[in-house]
C-alpha cells in the first residue's frame, strides 16, 4: 500500500507540475513537451487505478499521434515571433476568454463531483460487473452492446470532421506536375530512347 501511494503521489505531482508548466512556460515548444509529460503521467495514473486499457490508449492516441501533430505545428511556427506578440504586451485579450473557459470547466467538475457525493452508489449501479474479467473485456462488453449507438455516432462525427479537414485543405493548384505510376511503368526503352549518330562539330537536332 505504501508503494502504491508513493507512486500515486509521484505521478500526480508530475501531472500537476507539468500542467502548470504548460501554461506558464515561455517557449511554446516547451509547453508542448510538458503537455506530453502531463499526458504520460495521467496515463500512468489510469494504469494505477486498474484501467490499463484507457491508460495505454491515452499513450497511443494522445502521446503517440495527437501530440506529435501539435509538436509539428508548434515547431513550424516562428518561436521568436510568438514571444513578442501577446505575452509581453501590456493588454492581453486572452485572459477574459481563458477565465470564462476555466470557470465553465470548474462548474462542470463541481457538478460531476457533487453528483458523486449526492449519489454515492453511482459506480456500483452501472452495468459493469466488476468481476475478475479484464478491463478490456469489460469495456468491449458494454461498448458494443449498451452503448453501440453512441459509439457509432462518435465514429460518424470523427469521420465527418476528417472529411471536413480534407475538404478545407484540399485545393487544386493549376500547373502542378503529377506522376502517373502506370504511365511510368508502361514506358519501354524503344519509345523513350533513341540512338543518334553525332558527327563532330555538327551536333544533332532534337525534335522537342
Amino acid at each position, binding site marked *: 500500500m505504501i508503494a502504491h501511494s508513493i507512486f500515486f503521489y509521484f505521478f500526480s505531482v508530475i501531472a500537476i507540475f507539468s500542467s502548470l508548466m504548460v501554461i506558464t512556460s515561455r517557449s511554446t*515548444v516547451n509547453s508542448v513537451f510538458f503537455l506530453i509529460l502531463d499526458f504520460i503521467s495521467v496515463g500512468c495514473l489510469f494504469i494505477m487505478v486498474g484501467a490499463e486499457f484507457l491508460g*495505454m490508449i491515452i499513450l*497511443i492516441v494522445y502521446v503517440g499521434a495527437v501530440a506529435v501533430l501539435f509538436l509539428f505545428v508548434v515547431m513550424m511556427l516562428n518561436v521568436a515571433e510568438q514571444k513578442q506578440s501577446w505575452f509581453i504586451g501590456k493588454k492581453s485579450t486572452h485572459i477574459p476568454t481563458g477565465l470564462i473557459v476555466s470557470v465553465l470547466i470548474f462548474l462542470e467538475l463541481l457538478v460531476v463531483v457533487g453528483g458523486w457525493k449526492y449519489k454515492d452508489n453511482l459506480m456500483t449501479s452501472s452495468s459493469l460487473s466488476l468481476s475478475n474479467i479484464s478491463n478490456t*473485456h469489460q469495456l468491449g*462488453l458494454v461498448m458494443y452492446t449498451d452503448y453501440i449507438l453512441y459509439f457509432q455516432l462518435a465514429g460518424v462525427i470523427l469521420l465527418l470532421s476528417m472529411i471536413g479537414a480534407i475538404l478545407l485543405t484540399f485545393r487544386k493548384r493549376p500547373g502542378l506536375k503529377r506522376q502517373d505510376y502506370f504511365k511510368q511503368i508502361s514506358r519501354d526503352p524503344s519509345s523513350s530512347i533513341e540512338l543518334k549518330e553525332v558527327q563532330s562539330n555538327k551536333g544533332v537536332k532534337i525534335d522537342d
Partner: protein
Amino acid sequence: MTEYLFILGQEIYKILFLLIPILVSVAMIVWLDRRVWGLVQKRKGPNVVGPFGLLQTIADALKYIFKEIIIPASANKTVFILAPIVTMTLALVAWAVIPMSEKLILSDINVGILYLFAVSSLGVYGIIMGGWASNSKYPFLGAIRSAAQMVSYEVSIGIIIINVLLCVGSLNLKDIVIAQKELWYVVPLFPMFIIFFISALAETNRPPFDLPEAEAELVAGYQTEYSGMMYAMFWLGEYANILLMCAMGSILFLGGWLPLIDIYPINLIPAPLWMILKILFLFLLFALVKAIVPRYRYDQLMRLGWKIFLPFSLVYLVLTASFLFYFDKLPTGNI
C-alpha cells in the same frame, strides 16, 4: 521495510538480467548486419577485431565514448541532450513485456501488445526532439520526414495487430503465443506478415525506407549535429528498436517461443532459444533487405503506406472477421 528492499533488489536483478543481454545482443546484431551487408556485396565486412570481427562494435562503442560531445551553440541544450536519452530508454523499456518463454518474462501485463505499440509509437519523439533541438536545416527536415513516416506506418501496424488480436481474443502477449500452438499465424495471415515486415522496416527507419537519414539529400538527417556518446545512443536505440520489431513479429506471427513442430528431437531445444532463433531469422531478413533494395522516394513511401497498405489491411481485417464469424471460430476468451 526489509521486505520491500528485498523485492526491489530482486526486481533490479531481473531488469539487469534482461538489459545486459539485450545490450550485448544489440552489439552483436550490428556486427551481423554489417557482415551480411558485406557478404551480399562480396566484401568481407568487419573481420579484424576479435574472432570473426565479433568485437568490432565494442571497439566502435569505445571510440564513441572517448570522443568529445559537441553541442551546437544555437541548439536548445536540454532537448538536444534529452533526445538520444529518450530514444534509447524507449527502445529498452519495451523489452519488459516480451516473453522469452512461458515463465521468462519480466512483467506479464494484460495489455502487453498495446504497451508495445504505445512504446514504439513514442519512439518518434526522440527523433523529432533531436531534429528540432539541433536548430539546423537538415536535422529538422530529417525529423519531419521521419515523424510523418512513422506516424503513417503505425496506422497499418495497428490494423495488423488488430487482425492478430481477432484470432487470439486477448491482448496478453503470452496468450497470443499460446494461441498459436496449433498453427502459427504466419500461415493464415501471410499477407499481413509481409505488410507487417515492410511496415516494421519503415517504422525503424531501415533501408529501403531510411529517408530521414538519406545521405545524399539530408547529410545524416536528425543525427547530423550529434557526436560521440550521444550519437552512439541514437544508434543503440535504433538497433534495439529493430530487435524489438523482430521480437514483435516473431510473437505475432511466428509463434514466439513455440518449437517449429512439437515432436521429439525438435522440442528438446529450450523455449528461449526458439525465440532467439526466430528473432535472428527476422533480423537476417532485415539485413538482407538493407543490402539488396534501393531507397524509396518519399512520395512512393507515403503512397505505399496510405494508399496500399492501409486499405489492404483494412479489407483483410474485414475478411478475417467475417471468416471467424461465419465459421463460428471467434475466440470467446475468459468471459
